[in-house]
């Protein structure tokens, strides 16, 4: 998988590149509009992570240019602006997703994977990882061929963990992924605890103990 990250903030760019290097992505990063134009003219990427505010141009213009070149690379916008108008403008110009800063890297990872899956024609709704076989359209999951009966929350949690497998996913990221960010209140982690507890119990029933580990209460890791 070939990934281009366009982000003018050097340190944030570094974090993203470091995170995705671990996902066996070939990652390239640029910090301005001009070098981004060079990159997209020269090569084809599976996915472009695009910041809208660049020092020498607007990310939306880059998106327009990309579509003019008849390239259909996946584009996910990361922006500090979170108004509906910006979102609609971005999506209208052919962006595939829109993520508002500050975001969790695990969330970005999950979104990119979802996009890439949608692009690949054969297995668009099927997620296979290790012993898991997950049908995203039918919302069913099997583990070692045995059907797991999961609630909506547990299913979303499992997909999220599978997308971020072999990584520690912070409980804040999980809470925000499932809870949304509409409310002023800091998400209650009770919910995350209980969902994890239930998921672990159901996996244990299928003979897979210790697939999910808690990391000092900071987060959880699904090892595959």
């Amino acid at each position, binding site marked *: 998988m070939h990934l281009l990250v366009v982000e003018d*903030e050097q*340190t*944030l760019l570094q*974090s*993203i590149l*470091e*995170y995705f290097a*671990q996902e066996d992505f070939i990652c390239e990063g640029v910090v301005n509009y001009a070098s981004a134009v060079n990159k997209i003219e020269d090569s084809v990427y599976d996915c472009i992570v695009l910041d809208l505010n660049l020092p020498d141009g607007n990310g939306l213009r880059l998106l327009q240019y990309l579509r003019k070149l008849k390239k259909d690379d996946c584009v996910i916008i*990361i922006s*500090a*602006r*979170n*108004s*509906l*108008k910006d979102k609609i403008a971005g999506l209208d110009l052919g962006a595939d997703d829109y993520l*508002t*800063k*500050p*975001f*969790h*890297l*695990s969330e970005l990872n999950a979104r990119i994977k979802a996009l890439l899956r949608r692009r690949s024609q054969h297995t668009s709704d099927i997620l296979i990882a290790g012993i898991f076989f997950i049908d995203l359209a039918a919302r069913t999951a099997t583990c070692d061929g045995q059907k797991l009966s999961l609630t909506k*929350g547990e299913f979303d949690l499992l997909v999220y963990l599978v997308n971020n497998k072999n*990584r*520690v996913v*912070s409980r*804040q*990221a999980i809470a925000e992924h499932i*809870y949304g*960010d*509409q*409310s*002023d*209140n*800091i*998400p*209650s982690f*009770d*919910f995350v605890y*209980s969902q994890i507890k239930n998921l672990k119990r159901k996996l244990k029933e299928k003979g897979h103990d210790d697939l999910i580990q808690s*990391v*000092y*209460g*900071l*987060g959880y890791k699904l090892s595959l």
Partner: protein
Amino acid sequence: MSIRLLQKNMRFLLTWLPLVLVGCSLFFYVMLRIQAHHMQDKQLQLKQRNVWDAFIKTSGSMPLHVVGEYDIEKISGVRNIIPGDIRDTSIYYQDKKKQLPFETLVTYRNWQGNNYNVRTYVSSTEISHLIIKVFIAETVILLLLLFTIIFLNRYSAKRLWQPFFETMQRMASYDIARNQSLNLPVETGITEFNTLHKEINQLIDSSNIAYYNQKQFVENASHEMQTPLAIIRSKLELLINEPGLTAKNAAILQDITEANDRLSQMNRTLLLLAKIENNQFPETETIDINDLLSQLLANLQQYHESFPSLENTVSSDISLQANRSLIEILLSNLLNNAIVHNRENGRVRIMLTPSRLVISNTGKDLQYAPETLFERFKKDSYSSKTTGLGLALVKQICLLYGYTVNYDYRDGWHTVSVIFG
């Protein structure tokens, strides 16, 4: 106590004008009496001369007594009346059968060695009638004057102050949040009002600019903070994935993560507040409140382990014309508050009617004045799980759509009611 400008003016006039007019009338009456007396005096003296001249001319052959005109009396010896003074007297008239008032003057004359006592009369009936008539006419004129002055004053004051009252009305309807300009006319035809309007226009323009800048500042500052927050968050995520993490470091990381999340949440809410203020949610649709409410409740029941027991009185088919995400924020904030600020084994009551939504929950009493509840960053000191912006957000959304939001605490129940429209 304050009274209206026109009333004040009128009261002043009504107190002083009648006093002045009554004083003037009295003065006029006194002057009239003095002048009348003087005139009678002159008349009596003239009559004395005429009568005496005629008496001498006719060599004493004219009548000595004419009733109401004169008496000539030949006297010998003692003069029994002091002459030279006008006196009041009365004469009995047979035909009218009554005494009529007269003024009389007596002089002593000497003719052919004889002493005469000459007495002349003028009627004082006519003159006192004249005085009364003139005085009545004067009173009528003064009263007319009084009413005219009051009426004219009222009319002209009203006309004069008309632009002022219009200005006041327009200023009362001014709302800084709408960022409107008043544009008061600078040419009213009255210099003072022109100056006033110019000053007000300037004042409002500069307030608008200051308000706009402040709103922009909040929005810009929040925007600018998003990127550093994103950096911290991403670095924290990388850190928790580092091998060899110790329990001690994990605890530190957890504190940093929590603080950073709170900061992000606060920043996001501030940005949202600024956006609502800047009217960046123009899209509206018809929202089925029942539907939305039950959806949110279902989610919340799922998310909270210890969900308070719920009593629902919801009438069906209630819809609002508003922005969906804002109404979602409004409802979820109110519901979340009712759950988070509840006590153990608490209860929540929800009542929805076409005109209002009332959400009540059991809980500890407030630690601060209820009036400040909807202000930004007001929260209980023991609750670090909220940003203190939730109700400010609720208030802002209500303000946007013209809803009224009230809070009440009674018998251990916190009640927030939103009155639509």
